[in-house]
């Protein structure tokens, strides 16, 4: 029982601990088996990492919004990378889901949720916008409503616009409800 309490206590402390400010390089394969490294995108003005899912209704509610943001910003030297860290969502499922939903950006499979752990990502959808040195410029939601017609604050787009105009991102951290990333051994 004491051991149990200690484990919970450690878990609690780790939850309270400081957030990740910067990440280092990592390599992952996409759903076709092609390997990508974060350094492949270091010439970008910003790298948008999007933790997404195939089965999460919240993530799926954002499919068309992710597509339109990608279409709007891909020509402006901003790179988009989807990451699927859910243990139960297979590479073939990710591939067909991307095709069905016209998600044309790169989607990487984060086997054993190593990158989700590294970035402390916990929910889908969850966004990290990095600069070329992999500093985190923005972390959080795409916008402020799961219902597209009720969106008031386009947080990801605002962050990208500020980055493109050389300004500091004014709202660096936002939150929204979403699905828990299904990790191994959880």
């Amino acid at each position, binding site marked *: *029982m004491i051991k*149990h*309490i200690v484990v*919970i206590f450690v878990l*609690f402390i780790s*939850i*309270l*601990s400081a*957030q990740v400010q910067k990440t280092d390089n990592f390599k992952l394969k996409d759903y076709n088996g092609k390997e990508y490294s974060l350094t492949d995108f270091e010439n970008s003005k910003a790298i948008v990492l999007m933790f997404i899912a195939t*089965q999460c*209704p*919240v993530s799926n509610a954002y499919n068309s919004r992710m597509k339109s943001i990608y279409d709007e910003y891909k020509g402006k030297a901003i790179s988009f990378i989807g990451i699927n860290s859910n243990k139960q969502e297979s590479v073939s499922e990710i591939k067909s889901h991307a095709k069905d939903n016209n998600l044309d950006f790169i989607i990487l499979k984060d086997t054993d949720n190593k990158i989700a752990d590294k970035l402390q*990502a*916990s*929910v889908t959808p*969850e966004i990290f916008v990095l600069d070329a040195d992999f500093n985190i410029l923005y972390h*959080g939601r795409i916008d*402020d*409503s799961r*219902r597209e017609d009720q969106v008031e604050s386009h947080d990801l787009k605002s962050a990208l616009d500020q980055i493109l105009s050389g300004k500091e991102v004014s709202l660096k951290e*936002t*939150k*929204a*409800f*979403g*699905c*828990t*990333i*299904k990790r191994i051994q*959880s």
Partner: protein
Amino acid sequence: MQSRLIFIIFLTITVNAQSEVELLNKSDLEKLISKREGKILVLNIWATWCIPCREEIPDLIELQRKYSKDIDVVGISVDFPDEVEKRILPFIKQQNIRYKMFVNNMKDEDLINFFNVKWNGAVPASFIYEKTGKLTLFMEGKKSLKDFEGIIKELIM
């Protein structure tokens, strides 16, 4: 006459059904936490669209049944308030949830930030408050009856 009777019955059922899920604003949440009346509070944040949340609920029902003297399990659905009848109530009935149920009426971010812990809004999440109203534990992801019991037993003692 018969149609009027049917209408009244229908109205009664509808009114009863609606009274099962209350809208939750910040003041309701503060009141819920502060007015403990000698019981531990297990606050469970969930949604009908969330599969692990749905899977966790039978364990919460059992937790409330087993420790009804010492704890209050309270659910907060983060579905939209206009989904009470269509989504939340049918699930409550199907699972036979007897504990108190709210639907969040605050902005999502305001509810997430209310708890003042590092939580990005992944559901399910549970918050355990001592009898004094002090937040003791935050748990993210689906938990089992055993997980909840481990903590509850320590707090009851």
